[in-house]
């Protein structure tokens, strides 16, 4: 398992088990545009403050192959669109104490849910055959419908809380870095954030 220096340094084992463990935070990217993670990175120098306080045990920027156990807070970006997303969401729920929906896709379905008016097959035909220019004929394109490397899609893309219990909602597209920082700060302080003070749908 590849781990970032942040997690390695703060691993209780390496510190001889003397210091109490920092909260284990994960961030996950389901069906979204990664904008929420970009906004997360927009914490900029506040990332250092954060790194002092938590262990980022799983994230697109940490990239473990498997979702780790005993996560204290998991921020989930993106709607639940595919079978893979669905399984992952359930795994996240089972292994996290607190699950937060990060951004409008996870909170409301948002743009990924705009496909919900069409059947998956219709959608794929539109995207990979009708709208494609290469290969040169529709027949050849049909042969290239992505079946192998794309996990089967659910009939509709859904917000996270329709699949698993969600404890915190952080709307916004993307939620501003300030809002993310506020939520994390409040969480670490053991308070429940008043989220609509800092962000809203579509922010």
């Amino acid at each position, binding site marked *: 398992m590849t781990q970032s220096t942040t997690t390695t340094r703060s691993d209780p084992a390496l510190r001889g088990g003397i210091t109490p463990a920092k909260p284990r935070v994960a961030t996950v990217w389901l069906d979204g545009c990664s904008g929420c993670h970009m906004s997360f990175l927009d914490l900029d120098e506040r990332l250092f403050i954060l790194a002092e306080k938590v262990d980022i045990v799983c994230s697109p920027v940490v990239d473990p192959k498997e979702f780790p156990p005993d996560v204290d807070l998991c921020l989930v970006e993106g709607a639940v669109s595919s079978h893979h997303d669905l*399984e992952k969401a*359930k*795994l996240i729920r*089972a*292994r996290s104490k607190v699950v937060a929906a990060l951004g409008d896709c996870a909170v409301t379905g948002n743009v990924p849910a705009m496909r919900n008016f069409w059947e998956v097959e219709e959608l794929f035909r539109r995207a990979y055959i009708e709208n494609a220019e290469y290969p040169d004929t529709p027949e050849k394109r049909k042969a290239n419908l992505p079946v192998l490397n794309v996990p089967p899609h659910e009939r509709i893309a859904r917000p996270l809380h329709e699949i698993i219990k969600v404890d915190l909602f952080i709307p916004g597209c993307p939620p501003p870095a300030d809002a993310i920082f506020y939520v994390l700060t409040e969480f670490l302080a053991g308070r429940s954030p008043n989220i609509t003070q800092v962000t809203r749908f579509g922010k």
Partner: protein
Amino acid sequence: MTPEDLHGTVLKQQAKHGNYQHVFNVCMESGCVSCNSAAVVEALEAEVKKRGLQKTVCIKRVGCLCSCAQGPMVALDKGDTLYKAVTAADAPAMLDALDKGGRVEHLDFSSKQPFFSRQLKVVREHAGYFDPEDLDDSIRVGAYEALRKAVTEMTPTEVITEIANSGLRGRGGAGFPTGLKWSTVAKNPSTPKYVVCNGDEGDPGAFMDRSMMEGDPHRLIEGMAIAAYATGANRGFIYVRAEYPLAVKRLTRAINQATRTGLLGSRIFDTKFAFEIELRLGAGAFVCGEETSLLSSIEGQRGLPRPRPPFPANSGLFGKPTLINNVETYANIPTIINKSAAWFSSIGTAKSKGTKIFAISGKVHNTGLIEVPMGIPLRDIIFDIGGGIPGGKKFKAVQTGGPSGGCIPESQLDIPVDYESLMSVGSIMGSGGLIVMDETSNMVDVARFFMEFCMSESCGKCVPCRVGTYHMHEILQRIYDRQGTPQDLALLQELCDMVKNTSLCGLGQTAPNPVLSTLRYFKDEYTNLIHSTPTTEVLP
């Protein structure tokens, strides 16, 4: 028409009737017409003619004879002999039986059974024994006598006092005291005023008002005219759903007859009182049975409810004081005026006076139209009058009040039928639909059915009803399909509370009632369906 003319018509008609030795009353209301009672009339008439009995035997086209499911129904003379499921081919046998003084065995339907003997006919006192299409025949049995009495012998205030003293409450469902409503309109100095009749009967399984309009249209006109006299109105509207073509036809005919003979129009019974009635047809929206929607519809607007207050009594049709009552309420008026408030209030319970007409249907032996005194136990209606549950099945619930009402279980059957008791068990009196269900009915399905009805009949004006009924229906469907979760049930209850308390009009405010009452008495049916849901796999 003068008071003397009215009296003259009564005498003339009674004398004419005295000549008949026998009268065959053949039901010509929608139920019996649909199983071809018209052919029975024709066959009887032809047979009478063939035998040369025109002077002694009368064939009469009449209103409902109660046993709608047994039609075509025929009553001989005063109804001691009743025939059911009569066909045209039975005509000779029925006439033969007259000579022998007996009955036609295979058609005989006992008039002594509780279905008839437990009824008390006040509003329907003559229904079934006169021709509703014939003004003179209606006058023979007393039509317009109360109107004559009111306009020639009473002041408007006296009329209102009489109605108030009678304890009559609105028969449309909510049970608002009729006298109080009338006096509010009467006291309002603004003019013109309107009198409106709500004949937009839309509850599934309800056909009391249809029967009233088809079987005794002149009584309705008379009741409205008395109301107009009492409140100071000169124009009235009857709003009937277009799905009742026969009622529309008979009301049109009755209004024309009354107008032609001066029972409507100016100088009614030679007094200064003037009143005219127009018929307005609904276009198939259930919500137009809600009074403010109905008024919008009469005005030519989209049939949408308005917030109350202001109540129609103060600002109704075209913004003017408007008295709006249900068909059955108006139909009670002539009897009260004729027989006195004291007589009327001697019937019924402390707070619910008089009788109530119910359309009893579903899983009972005797289905049809019944008029019973207020306060009669529900159990008696279902097991005595209705004759119990057919096929050896067990009774499960009775639904009253249509989509706004609730399902009442066996344990509550001994409550008396009155406004307060029905409300206390989570249902309402409603307009009078009474649907009996046996053990084969699934109560979640029943709730789902009524919610589907409310969802498709919601007008869409207010958010809670428009969207809430949709979500409630989706959840009920999910639960019924065994796809529901405990969270669904919690959400359903949350929605019920919210839609009930925040909707704009009665449709939305009462739409959750079938769910709430089935949840109250049959919650295990919900939980059984939820627990038989295939469990989702649990991941580590």
